């Protein structure tokens, strides 16, 4: 037990990496082992994340020195409340999606030879994300970022006929993003001579005025903006999410963009500090306005879509905008909103994409225009969960989505940014337009055929994660004060405002 206790910061990564490699090997013995291995390791990481969060909250930041070398020479893994919290979100969603994956993988990935690689790559992606969030070293972060991104490209390309095109587009843009990050890091490194986050933070005040530092910061922000699909750097997102298999979309959409947001939050508010990024150089102001534009753009584009997954993809652009807006506000309330929305949006988007996956699995399509009353009769639970997710996206209290908007609105008021406030509120209405369009069809459109459709609900493995997420949305909404006070409050106090 003490062994787990001592090594818990590194264990998720340490366990996920070999599992990703072992999955194909074990699958040679028995193909079903692939899924069970992935589930087992994913569940373990969830447990470890809970442990880490408890540790980080009660004992303060945990530092883990890889290889026993203390920083700045060695690479350290740091779990402060922010990273522990984001890790818990990522791993929980990852586990739920993997539970859901079985039938979708069978159905949407036609060649059965790709099923085992799917699990391997998914676990590798989770490993990458765990590494990104847990590491306290900027270059290590880059390596994990590329591991995660490469897995993402694979997960997307595994999908429909057009998926590889979407994947290559994502690959090119994603690599540009990573290169920008690396370049920006190069500038910071030449100015400070260190790659360790804490070390860099200590040295920065001395060189903060240098143009090289400013350029470096700008490049990192652009690079991460690409990774998190911040408007107008979102070009890769819609096709990727649409053509990827539903289970991949459900894995990528809630987690993938959040990691970019995490890195931005980390760099802006924990390394540079709010004063620097909002006053010395108005980075956050730019992010805020871009995010506001992105919210409107994403919402409006979502209204124009006829395919459910594509609609959700555009909605993701808008939702990422919320996080960007919270970052752009550069005040504690905005940060609360942003971090809370990282969690809430992860849960909401996972739920919606999984529900879309259920539609595809049962109905064979996810065209909004072909959904009707029979959908509800055939799959009452999935549709009910979808409705909960949609209402949460719109921001109906007491569901989770309302509260991230609430804190963002408070942040906007505190900053007297009336335009941002208006954008947050307007986007609620736009969300309502495109989600009620779907709800209306599912619940109130008369079925084409009057014959009573048999109840053909998705199988248990697909239904349980969806229902768990739906319940979570209610729970996270009602109990958000506990999370905000207990966890996010600590994150905010450790940020540099």
């Amino acid at each position, binding site marked *: 037990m003490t062994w787990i206790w001592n090594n818990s910061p590194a264990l998720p990564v340490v366990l996920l990496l070999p599992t990703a490699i072992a999955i194909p090997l074990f699958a040679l013995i028995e193909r079903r082992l692939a899924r069970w291995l992935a589930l087992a390791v994913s569940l373990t990481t969830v447990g470890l994340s809970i442990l880490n969060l408890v540790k980080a909250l009660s004992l303060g930041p945990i530092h883990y020195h890889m290889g026993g070398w203390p920083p700045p020479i060695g690479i350290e893994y740091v779990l402060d409340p922010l990273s522990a919290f984001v890790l818990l979100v990522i791993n929980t969603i990852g586990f739920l999606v993997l539970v859901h994956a079985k039938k979708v993988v069978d159905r*949407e990935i036609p060649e059965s030879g790709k099923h085992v690689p799917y699990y391997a790559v998914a676990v590798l992606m989770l490993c990458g994300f765990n590494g990104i969030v847990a590491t306290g070293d900027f*270059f290590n972060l*880059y*390596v994990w970022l*590329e591991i995660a991104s*490469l897995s993402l*490209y*694979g997960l997307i*390309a595994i999908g*429909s*006929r*057009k998926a*590889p*095109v979407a*994947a*290559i587009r994502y*690959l*090119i843009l994603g*690599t*540009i993003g990573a*290169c920008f990050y*690396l*370049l920006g890091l*190069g500038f910071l*490194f*030449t100015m400070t001579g260190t*790659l360790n986050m804490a070390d860099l933070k200590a040295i920065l005040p001395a060189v903060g005025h240098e143009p090289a530092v400013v350029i470096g910061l700008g490049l990192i922000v652009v690079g991460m903006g690409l990774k998190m699909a911040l408007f107008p750097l979102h070009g890769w997102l819609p096709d990727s999410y649409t053509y990827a298999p539903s289970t991949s979309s459900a894995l990528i959409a809630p987690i993938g963009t959040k990691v970019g947001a995490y890195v931005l939050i980390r760099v802006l508010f924990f390394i540079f500090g709010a004063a620097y990024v909002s006053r010395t150089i108005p980075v956050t102001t730019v992010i805020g306005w871009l995010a506001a534009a992105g919210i409107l753009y994403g919402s409006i584009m979502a209204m124009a879509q006829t395919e459910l997954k594509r609609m959700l993809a555009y909605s993701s652009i808008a939702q990422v905008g919320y996080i960007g807006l919270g970052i752009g506000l550069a005040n504690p309330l905005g940060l609360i909103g942003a971090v809370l929305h990282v969690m809430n949006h992860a849960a909401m988007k996972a739920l919606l994409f999984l529900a879309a996956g259920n539609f595809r699995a049962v109905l064979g399509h996810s065209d909004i225009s072909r959904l009707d009353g029979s959908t509800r009769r055939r799959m009452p639970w999935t549709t009910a969960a979808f409705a909960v997710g949609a209402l949460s996206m719109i921001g109906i209290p007491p569901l989770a989505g309302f509260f991230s908007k609430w804190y963002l609105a408070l942040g906007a008021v505190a900053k007297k940014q009336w335009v941002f406030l208006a954008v947050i509120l307007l986007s609620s209405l736009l969300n309502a337009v495109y989600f009620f369009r779907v709800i209306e069809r599912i619940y109130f459109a008369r079925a084409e055929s009057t014959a009573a459709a048999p109840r053909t609900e998705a199988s248990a493995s697909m239904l349980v994660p969806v229902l768990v997420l739906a319940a979570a949305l209610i729970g996270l909404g009602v109990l958000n004060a506990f999370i905000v006070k207990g966890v996010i409050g600590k994150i905010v106090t450790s940020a540099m405002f």
Partner: protein
Amino acid sequence: MTTSWKDIPVTKFLLGHYGYWFVFILMTLGFYGMVVKKNLVKKLIGMNIFQVAIIMFYLSSAGKWKATIPIVDPAIGTADTARYIDPLQHCLMLTAIVVGVATSGVAYALLITIYKRFGTLHEDELIERMKNDLDME
């Protein structure tokens, strides 16, 4: 007193950073290839050039005048670290190169799949053929 043309601030700036200018030009070339070229293979070549430029950038920051490779030389000793160049950047870039190789590998695998399915790697044609491709699933 005559000032050499090398002492004019602008030229001084240009000359003093000549390594960076080289990197900058390389980077621009790569970026140009990635953004403007329509052929996906050319885009990837641009991407590789871009990555190489960044690697060069890091390595150029490691260099020192009159310093040698970072292997302890008994003739120099360890007292004066300025005599050795910084090894860290090289280690980092080793990793970056590996990442670049992996990215290229994935990218070319994708390109082959695309070529098999759509018979072209030209972006405009690809979009055209994707439109006509009715298999949505």
